């Protein structure tokens, strides 16, 4: 298997919402993980129940809401016309913005959530910074003049551990849901080009999200690692590994976070686990998205009302 990886050793911003645990609680969690039994009954490689819903906000080009346990994230994609970057004249591009709202915790009020937000946005830029994640050529309208810029805005509503996974699932679902209107280029006699957006809401272009990677966070607790850690488990783990895996098992980005250190052997183990879990995750996510799509108009939009 080919994999391109980048190993970084920065620790995550300390402004992450955290919970204070006593030593006894930490030991309890540790012992449980040793025996492959976590506090809520899951195994080490099990995710909590993931809820995904797309098209939640109607005046965006695409949107999705993902809820894993107590972590709640809303992603909106807005497509706007802009000029392509100088070094890539035949491609459009994506811009990420993460807003950690004060809803999640009062510490994020005002500018408190900016640090964490930029950290997550940085990570998102990295995992999408390769040729195959999103077909950027399809976003081009006129080379060197016009292209689509996709502004992906992530709104963090509730923080219950495992932010990166949730956000990456949300981004993939929102990109899947994006419906970019088709553009026709009309040429005048003088050579002046005019862009015409089609008015038909169904005449739109969809993005191929097959190669969009998802992040899997593996937190090391004691001698074992767990997938999808809750806030309490994150407080027990000293080091975590974030890997971005596509549905085919290709690694696009890898990063280690946390104050502790990781043994190279365990890193390999964690990567294997991560790839296994990610494959499964991608398959189920794609199933759900296809199912939602097939319901079409009949689907009842629930959003937050349930």
């Amino acid at each position: 298997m080919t994999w391109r990886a980048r190993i970084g050793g920065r620790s995550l911003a300390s402004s992450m919402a955290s919970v204070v645990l006593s030593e006894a609680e930490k030991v309890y969690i540790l012992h449980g993980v040793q025996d492959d039994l976590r506090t809520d009954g899951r195994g080490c490689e099990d995710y909590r129940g993931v809820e995904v819903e797309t098209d939640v906000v109607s005046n965006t080009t695409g949107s999705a809401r993902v809820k894993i346990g107590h972590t709640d994230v809303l992603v909106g994609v807005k497509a706007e016309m802009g000029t392509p970057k100088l070094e890539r004249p035949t491609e459009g591009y994506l811009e990420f913005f993460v807003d950690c709202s004060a809803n999640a915790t009062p510490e994020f009020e005002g500018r408190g959530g900016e640090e964490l937000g930029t950290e997550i946005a940085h990570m998102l830029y990295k995992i999408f910074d390769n040729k195959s994640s999103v077909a950027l050529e399809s976003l081009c309208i006129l080379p060197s003049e016009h292209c689509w810029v996709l502004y992906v805005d992530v709104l963090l509503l509730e923080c219950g551990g495992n932010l990166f996974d949730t956000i990456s699932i949300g981004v993939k679902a929102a990109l899947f849901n994006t419906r970019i209107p088709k553009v026709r280029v009309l040429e005048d006699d003088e050579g002046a080009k005019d862009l015409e957006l089609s008015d038909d809401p169904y005449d739109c272009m969809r993005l191929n999200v097959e190669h969009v990677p998802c992040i899997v966070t593996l937190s090391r607790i004691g001698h074992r690692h767990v997938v999808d850690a809750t806030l309490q488990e994150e407080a027990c783990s000293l080091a975590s590994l974030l890997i971005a895996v596509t549905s085919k098992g290709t690694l696009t980005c890898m990063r280690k976070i946390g104050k502790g250190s990781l043994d190279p052997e365990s890193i390999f183990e964690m990567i294997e686990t991560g790839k296994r879990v990610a494959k499964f995750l991608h398959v189920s996510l794609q199933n759900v998205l296809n199912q939602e799509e097939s319901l079409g108009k009949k689907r009842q939009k629930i959003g937050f009302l349930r």
Partner: protein
Amino acid sequence: MAGLELLSDQGYRVDGRKSGELRKIQARMGVFAQADGSAYMEQGNTKALAVVYGPHEIRGSRAKTLHDRAVVNCQYSMATFSTGERKRRPHGDRTSTEMTMHLKQTFEAAILTQLYPRCQIDIYVQILQADGGNYCTCVNAATLAVIDAGIPMRDYVCASSAGFIEDTPLADLSYVEEASGGPQLALALLPKSDQIALLEMNSRLHEDHLDRVIDAASKACKDVYAVLDQVVRDHLQEVTALIGDRGSA
């Protein structure tokens, strides 16, 4: 946009409502488990999420402590994808700061702050989709969230906007009606005592019509109050049923 008729001859507005009708309201309390109180509210296409933390100890500078009352701290922010054109900053610009101050003023009047001296109550409101009546939806959502958090208030705070077109007052304006430039009034009311917690008006309106517009807004607020009250009671029934089952088992 010149040809857009905000009020047709038969008395129907752009979205088919009559002049005194409100948009469809859907609300839900207790959306987030980690916050002390939370509520989600949809008024037509405007969606707002309100979260309340508190009462808790004053965070940050102790200088803000009031010896006999609680401090009400609000923040109003709009998601960057909420408006038609993408917003650069979710909060911190002048309009958001102004809205924050209005929210704070409204809730300081309604919450019984004397019961929690030296404490702080945080109210955070997030607009997920903006389609007119942002402030009013925020206030309504925040009322539900404060009730969900169990903080005592004098009365529900219900807010509604009103406009005036062709000699008819309109209740609950949508974005299209707001952008047309006619007079708009936003009113936050305590329904039982008819007391106005906040009154804000923009654009020109002749003094003689002020009475009717305020009346239309008050009536709309009372209608909103009926809906909110029903939501609270339903939620309470649901919650007691769940607890009751466990208790009897």
